[in-house]
Each structure stands twice: as C-alpha cells, then as structure tokens.
C-alpha cells in the first residue's frame, strides 16, 4: 500500500460539501474512484469541483472545510 498526497490544483477556498449542512463529498476512509468529486474550490465566487485523478482510499484531509488553499498545497492523502 502506498500513500500519496494530492495537492490543490488551484488557489481559493476549499469546501468539503456542496452546501452548508450537506454531507461531505468524501469522508475519511471513503473509497475514491477516478472522476469522483472530493471537494470544491471557490475562486472569486466561481466554484470548481476537485475531481480525483487517481483511485484509492482517502485517508486524511490536510485542510478544513472553508479553509484558504494555495495552488500546490497538500489537500488530502490517498492510499492505493
């Protein structure tokens, strides 16, 4: 089993759910398939989904919901 840290593709505000109060797209230890939505990044009031490019098990998030992220900043750990 290998662990890989996935980085934020763009800068902005990271959201783990589509709307406040909704369940998160992914919880820790959830399975992730290629193309799954892991979160959203809001850039200047525009929301872009963060799509998984690799499959595996999501082990940990490095940022909290509504945290600021910079491009390249560690976002989550994927085990595969």
């Amino acid at each position, binding site marked *: 089993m290998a662990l890989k840290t996935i980085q934020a593709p*763009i*800068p*902005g*505000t990271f959201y783990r759910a589509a*709307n406040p109060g909704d369940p998160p797209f992914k919880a820790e230890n959830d399975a992730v398939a290629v193309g799954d939505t892991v979160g959203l990044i*809001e*850039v*200047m*009031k*525009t929301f872009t989904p963060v799509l998984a490019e690799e499959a595996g098990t999501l082990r940990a998030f490095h940022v909290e919901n*509504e*945290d*600021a992220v910079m491009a390249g900043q560690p976002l989550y750990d994927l085990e595969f």
Partner: protein
Amino acid sequence: MAIRRIFVANRGEIALRIVRAARELGIATVQAVSAADREMLPARLADAVAPIGPAHAGKSYLNKEAVLRAALESGCDAVHPGYGFLSENADFAGLVEEAGLTFIGPTPETIRQMGDKATARSVAAQAGVPTVPGSEGRIEGLDEARAAAAAIGFPVMIKAAAGGGGRGIRVARGPDELAALVPQAAAEAKAAFGDGGLYLERFVGRARHVEVQVLGDGRDAIHLFERECSLQRRRQKVWEEAPAACLSPETREALCTSAVRLAKAVGYRGAGTLEYLYDAGTGAFFFIEMNTRIQVEHPVTEMITGIDLVREMIRIAGGEPLRLSQGDVRPRGHAIEVRINAEDPSRGFQPAPGTITALSLPGGPGVRVDTMLYPGYAVPPFYDSLLAKLVVHDETREAALARLGRALGELAVEGLPTTAALHRALLADPAVRAGDVHTRWLEAWLDAHPLTP
C-alpha cells in the same frame, strides 16, 4: 457629532475610495483586513489596520460581531460598509447603532424595508412610482403563484423576496414551467437567503437597465440624475454610463422625480440607487428595486455632476443636512465606466487571481482609475474579481467613447488576464457605439463574437 474616525468594513477598490474621501474630510480611517488582505492598498493607505478574521469572507468581512468588535476596539465612531458584504444587512446596521457608533448609510428600518423586494415594490407603488406588473407582495404556494401569473400575463419572472444582485431569478413562459420552477426557486431562496419567500413580475424582454442616484438626509432628498447599465453578463454589470443616452428629456425628468418621491416617502438618509427597467419601445419605465448603499458605478455620476457621493454620505451620517438643493445639481457631458476584472474573456471569463508583475494606468484629461492594484500585489482568490474601474468623462458620448479607447490603449496589467480585452472589442462594435443595446444583448453578442486569446 461630527465623525472623527471611520472603520472601513470592506476591501478592494471601494475601501480605498472610502479612505480617500475620509482623508479629504480630515477624518482618520481604520481598515478592516482579513488574513488574506494585509497587503492590499487600502490597508497601506489607511491610518491603521484591524484584523477581523481568516480569508473566508463568511468568517471576516461578513462576520457582524467580529467587524463590530474591531470597530469598537480600534476607537472608531463610525462604520462605512461600502457595497456588498454587510452593506445592506439591517441587523448589522442595528448592531452598529446600538453600540453607539454611526452607520454610514440609511437606518436599519429603511434597509429592512427596501431589502425585502416585495415590500419595496408596494412602498414604491404607494409613492406613485411605476412598478413592473406583478404580484401584490409575496406569493405563498403554487396556487397563489398560478393566480398571480394569470393576472400578470406570461412570461413571468420568479424572484426571491430576500434576493438581489440578480440571484435566484427564473423565467416561466407558461403554467407548466411555473409549476416546475416555483418549488425550485423557493428551495433555492431558502438555501441562499434563509427566506423562501417569492414574488412574481412580468418579464420585459428587451429592457434597458436605468437607475437613479439619490441623496437624502432623512428629511429631504434630491436626485443626481441617472445611469444606464444595460451591458451585463450573468446579470452583472460590466459597462456603465451617465447619463442614459436613450432617454428623452421628458422621460428623464419623470424618471428622476419618481425616484425622489420614493426617497422622500421613506425618509431616505445617505446615498441610494433606484433601479428601473426601461422599455425603449414604449418609453415606459418600471421600478425594480432600491440599493441602500453606494454602488460600484457611482463614479460616472460623480464625473457628470462634480459631486463627491462618498464624501456627501459621510457628511450626512455625521449629522449635516443636505448641502445641495436640486437646482445645484447640473449634469455636464457624458461619462463611461468599464469594469476591469481578473477574468479571462477568452476562456469563458474564468476567474484568474495572480500577482501583478507590471502595471501602467491611463491618465490625462477626463480619465479616472479607481483601483487597488500596484505592481507586485498578489490578487487573492477569495473575493470578487473586480480589480479596477476605468472611468472617462468628456463633452459628449461620442467624445467619451474616443477617450475610453485612448485610455484602454494606455492600460497595461501584466501577470494575469483581465476583461480589458472585452472592453476594447465592445468599443469597436457598432451597436455599442450607437447605444443600441439591452440587458440581454451582451450574452448574445459574446456567443456570436467569442474572444480569442
């Protein structure tokens, strides 16, 4: 109770605008900053800065308690909310006043009254201001919606009572669409504004957007003529002019005096804007809503009237009566503002934060640039994409268009894409030059004229 120290509860170019107006009045400023905004130009130019929270606006610029606490702790006696964020939040205005500070804007009651779009419509109708044929106040449930739509006539717009800024608007062309869209609109309004209330209005297809600037001191009110903002993308204005060249002198007079009637009817205090739809085919105008704050496009009015709206609103908040009578407001020439946003018009207006590597701003006669940019500034990704407002003024609209072209030619922003390319293309378009546009013109034009990198 003259104001001595203003807390600037906003960011970007409007924060800078407020800092500048205050300084000219001999008033100190404390600039609110989120963790992402410590290096912005208004923070550098204000007398002091006050941290209000993390980058996320919900936890900083929209956090009423944090903003008020910072205003009190920094020894301010007034709060200027700018536009957006808490500027039209009646609860915030109330908290500021309860804490013994001055809110630079209307009373919480006026904000509440005008903020509920259904109430605003009925207040306008009572003041003799024409409104778009629509439901009388809120509609509750689909049966009421059906009855109201039948009386108004299709197509109808479904709007959120608590909405604004063009959000949450749907168009139903017939009863079936109405049945499908009303529950959706109610759910979306509930999620977005915490209030699922709706109202209906007739949909005017080829409308122009005109709006009247008013100034009141709580007792008396005047207008500062109108602006036209028909060039919009996704209901966001991109280009604004004053005056509205499409109006006859008679229509202008009727429009502007109707706005003053409404401002007087509510005892309006401060700077405000009444937005109208204008049907150029029939010459009819209809009130849509009132914005109880300074607006992004206020500089075009300042350019044609020579009146500094932000200074006037500060003076009024400090207890001074209106210094101008209606006869003192004499418009001269024509002004145009274009919004320079951090968006890539050749890639679907994708937002593009980044660092400004080089900057050349236009100057010379009749040119004004309101911007928070400086070379080396890192535009944060967390907020609105507005970077700069390029405003020109000249004797006629034709001369102002030529001056805009000259100024756009001098403008160079490097390090990120901007909407300057859109404005250069619009300026070359015959319909824009002739002023022959309406509120849905730009989106159709963009489909037909995609911008290339």
